[in-house]
C-alpha cells in the first residue's frame, strides 16, 4: 500500500497519497482551486500564482499546484488574503492583456475571462501603456496572437514535453518575456509540425487555428459548386462537447444531420478511406516483409507525425508508408472516381474535410499530393470550426434526429472506426494483414495495442511471419521509439505513430474543455471508448470486408497497390530543414 498523508483543508480532514499536491488534495474535499498555468500532464510550474493558498504557520502564500500536501498541514483556500492575491494577480495579467474579448475566438471559453468574472476584477486597475505585439498568422494552420498571451507557458510545455518538438519557447526575460520561435521567426518558417497541441493547451485566445469557415460558407453559397463534406472517425466522439454534451457521447447521427443542414450537398463517412488506407497500407506492409523492403514501416496517416519525421528524421523517409492519409485519399477518390461516376467536373467539386487536426490544414496544401493538378481536399476544418458553423447556422444540435451518411460512402468497418484512437490504425492494419498472410485466421481483437500508454509494444506471429509492432502517440514517445530503432535497441517491423497523445481523439483541432474538466477527467479514455464501442457493435470489423471497399476496388482501383491506386492514393515525402 502506498503511503498517505492526512491534512486539513479549510478545516476539512482529507487523506491523500504521499506526493499529492495541495491542489489535488483539495479536490478530495470538494474544493476547487482556480488555476491558469497548471494543466494536468502538461504543465506544472507554479508560475501564474492564481492557485495560491495559505498554509497555517507559513509566511506568504504558496502555489497549490506544486506544493506537496504534508502530514498535519492546515491549508486555507478561501481567506481574504488568498482572494485578494488572486484578484490582484488577475488584474495584473489583464493590465497587459489585449482585452478585445467580444471578437476573440475564445470568448466564453477563456479561462482568464472565467476567473476574472469569478473574482470580480477591475480590468483597468493597473492598466499599462505597452504596445501590443504583432500577430503571427503566416502559417496555414495556427495563429499566434501574443497580445492575448498570459505567459503561462502551457503551449511551450506541450510543444516540448508532449511533442519534443520545442519549436516555441520563452524568449528574453522579465516583462519582455514572450513565447515565440527562435529569432522571432513565424511558425510557418520554423520546423513546426502543426499538431496544434499548443492550441489545445492555451487557456486564452493567444493560440487558435486559422479559421477557414468563411471559405466553406462561400462554397456552399456558390451555385456552381457542389460541396461534399466528410467527417473523420473521431469527430462523432467529440463534436457533442461543442454543444455542452458530456465527453464520450457518440453523436454520429446528429453530426451527419447537422452537417447536412449547413447546406452541403453530400455528407460522407471518412471511415471509408480509413478502410481504404488499411487496404493499401496492409498490402504495402506485406509486400515490404515479403520482398525485403525497408522496415520497420511507419504509418503515414498522421500529418503532424509525417512533418515531424521530415524535419527531424529525414533519414527515415524510406520507412514511411507511401499511402496518403485517409483525408487525402478521400479527396483523391472524390475528385476522380466519384466525379467520373457522377459526371462532375472535378473543378466544380468542393471537398471539405472535418478533421480533429490543425496539421491537416497544412497537409491539404502539399503539392506533391495533388494527384489531379489540384488539391485533393479544398478546405480542412477542425471539429471546433464545424461546431462554430453549426452554431452560426442556428442549428439546435442536441435536439436533432439521427441521420445517416450519404451513399456511396456511407458504410465502413470497425477497423476504420477505431482509426481515431492510438493503436487503432495498427489494429485495423493487423486485422487485414493477418488475413492477407493467412486467410484462415479469425483474429479481430489485438488488445495489446489499445489504451492510453505512450508506447505500446506487441509481437504477433501470422502465417509464419513474426512481427514486432510498436504504437506511439505523442511525438516525444515517437522520438523515443525512433531513437531506440536507431540505436539498435529495438527491432520493429511495423510502427504506428500519432502525433497527438492518445491519437486523433485528443487532436489539436478537438473541442477545448475547460481546465476544471480537463484536470479531473480522462478525456482521452472517454472519447476513445466511443470508437471502440462502435467497433464492437459493428457487424463488419475488418477493412477488407467492407462492401464499399469491395465496390471501389471492383469498379475503379482493381487491386491494392495497382497503378491507379499508386497514382491517386500514394505519395512522396520532402526532406525538410530542422
Amino acid at each position, binding site marked *: 500500500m502506498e503511503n498517505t498523508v492526512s491534512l486539513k483543508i479549510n478545516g476539512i480532514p482529507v487523506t491523500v497519497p504521499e506526493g499529492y499536491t495541495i491542489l489535488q488534495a483539495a479536490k478530495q474535499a470538494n474544493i476547487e482551486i482556480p488555476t491558469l498555468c497548471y494543466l494536468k500532464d502538461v504543465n506544472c510550474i507554479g508560475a501564474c500564482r492564481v492557485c495560491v493558498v495559505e498554509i497555517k504557520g507559513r509566511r506568504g502564500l504558496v502555489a497549490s499546484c506544486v506544493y506537496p500536501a504534508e502530514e498535519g498541514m492546515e491549508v486555507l483556500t478561501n481567506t481574504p488574503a488568498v482572494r485578494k492575491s488572486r484578484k490582484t494577480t488577475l488584474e495584473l495579467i489583464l493590465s497587459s492583456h489585449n482585452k478585445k474579448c467580444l471578437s476573440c475566438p475564445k470568448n466564453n471559453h477563456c479561462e482568464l475571462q472565467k476567473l476574472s468574472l469569478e473574482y470580480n476584477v477591475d480590468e483597468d486597475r493597473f492598466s499599462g501603456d505597452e504596445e501590443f505585439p*504583432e500577430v503571427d498568422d503566416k502559417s496555414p494552420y495556427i495563429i499566434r496572437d501574443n497580445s492575448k498571451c498570459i505567459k503561462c507557458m502551457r503551449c511551450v510545455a506541450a510543444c*516540448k514535453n508532449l511533442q519534443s*518538438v*520545442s*519549436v*516555441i*519557447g*520563452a*524568449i*528574453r*526575460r522579465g516583462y519582455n518575456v514572450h513565447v*515565440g*520561435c*527562435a*529569432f*522571432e*521567426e*513565424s511558425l510557418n*518558417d*520554423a520546423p513546426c509540425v502543426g499538431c496544434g497541441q499548443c492550441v489545445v493547451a492555451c487557456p486564452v485566445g493567444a493560440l487558435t487555428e486559422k479559421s477557414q469557415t468563411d471559405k466553406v460558407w462561400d462554397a456552399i453559397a456558390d451555385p456552381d459548386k457542389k460541396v461534399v463534406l466528410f467527417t473523420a472517425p473521431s469527430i462523432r466522439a467529440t463534436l457533442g462537447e461543442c454543444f455542452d454534451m458530456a465527453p464520450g457521447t457518440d453523436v454520429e447521427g446528429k453530426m451527419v444531420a447537422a452537417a447536412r443542414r449547413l447546406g452541403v450537398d453530400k455528407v460522407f463517412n471518412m471511415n471509408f478511406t480509413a478502410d481504404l488506407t488499411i487496404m493499401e497500407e496492409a498490402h504495402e506492409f506485406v509486400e515490404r516483409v515479403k520482398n525485403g523492403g525497408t522496415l520497420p514501416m511507419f504509418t503515414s496517416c498522421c500529418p503532424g507525425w509525417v512533418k515531424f519525421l521530415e524535419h527531424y528524421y529525414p533519414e527515415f523517409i524510406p520507412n514511411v508508408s507511401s499511402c496518403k492519409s485517409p483525408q487525402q485519399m478521400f479527396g483523391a477518390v472524390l475528385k476522380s472516381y466519384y466525379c467520373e461516376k457522377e459526371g462532375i467536373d472535378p473543378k466544380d467539386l468542393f471537398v471539405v474535410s472535418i478533421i480533429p487536426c490543425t496539421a491537416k490544414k497544412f497537409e491539404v496544401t502539399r503539392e506533391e499530393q495533388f494527384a489531379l493538378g489540384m488539391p485533393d481536399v479544398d478546405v480542412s476544418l477542425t471539429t471546433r470550426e464545424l461546431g462554430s458553423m453549426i452554431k452560426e447556422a442556428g442549428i439546435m444540435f442536441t435536439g436533432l434526429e439521427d441521420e445517416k451518411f450519404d451513399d456511396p460512402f456511407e458504410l465502413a468497418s470497425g477497423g476504420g472506426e477505431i482509426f481515431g484512437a492510438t493503436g487503432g490504425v495498427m489494429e485495423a492494419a493487423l486485422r487485414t494483414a493477418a488475413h492477407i498472410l493467412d486467410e484462415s485466421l479469425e483474429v479481430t481483437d489485438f488488445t495489446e495495442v489499445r489504451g492510453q500508454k505512450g508506447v505500446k509494444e506487441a509481437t504477433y506471429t501470422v502465417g509464419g511471419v513474426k512481427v514486432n509492432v510498436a504504437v506511439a502517440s505523442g511525438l516525444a514517445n515517437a522520438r523515443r521509439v525512433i531513437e531506440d530503432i536507431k540505436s539498435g535497441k529495438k527491432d520493429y517491423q511495423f510502427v504506428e505513430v500519432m502525433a497527438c497523445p492518445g491519437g486523433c481523439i485528443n487532436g489539436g483541432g478537438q473541442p477545448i474543455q475547460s481546465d476544471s474538466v480537463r484536470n479531473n477527467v480522462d478525456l482521452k479514455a472517454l472519447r476513445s471508448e466511443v470508437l471502440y464501442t462502435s467497433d464492437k457493435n459493428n457487424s463488419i470489423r475488418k477493412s477488407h470486408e467492407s462492401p464499399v471497399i469491395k465496390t471501389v476496388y471492383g469498379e475503379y482501383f482493381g487491386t491494392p497497390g495497382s497503378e491507379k491506386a499508386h497514382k491517386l492514393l500514394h505519395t512522396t515525402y520532402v526532406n525538410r530543414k*530542422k
Partner: protein
Amino acid sequence: MEKKSVHAFNGTAEQEEQLKAVIREHHDQPGGLMPVLQGAQEIYGYLPYEVQSMIAEGLGISLSEVYGVATFYSQFSLTPKGENRISVCLGTACYVKGADKILEAIEQKLGIKSGECTEDGMFSLDSTRCVGACGLAPVMMVNDEVYGRMTPEKVDEVLAKYMNNDKAGEAQ
C-alpha cells in the same frame, strides 16, 4: 518582424572549426549549453542565427531552446558590438555618484542610446552592473580600460583617445 540577423554573417571557416571544438568539448557535459554559448561569443563576438543553429545542431537541442537561453542572459549579444566597447557602470555606488549623467553625456556625444552601436561600427555603448571599481565611482570602461572618477566633462577627453586612434588607423 525582422527575421534572423540584420547584419550579414561573416564567419570564417577557422571560426567554425573553433566553435566545433568548443561544442565537442562540452557535448557530453551536463548543462553544456552555457559554456558553449560563452565560447561561441568569444569566437564570434556575438551570437547570430548561423552560430546558434550550429550550436543547436551540435548539442542536439532545439534552436528555440538555444535562443531562449541566449536571450535570457544579458551577457549574450545577438548583434555585433562596436570596435570599441564602452560600458558605463550603473551599480549603486556609481549611480549615487552620478553615473547616469556620464551615460547621458556619452549618449549625446555619440548619438546612440545604451545598447546600440554607432553606424560606423566604431563604438558600442552599454550600461553594466557593478564592475567592482566602486572606489573609483563613477566609472566607465572602454574595452578593458577602466576610467574612474568620471565627470560628464571628462567624457570627451576619454572618447577622443579612441577617435584619434581610429582616424590614425584610417589614414594608414
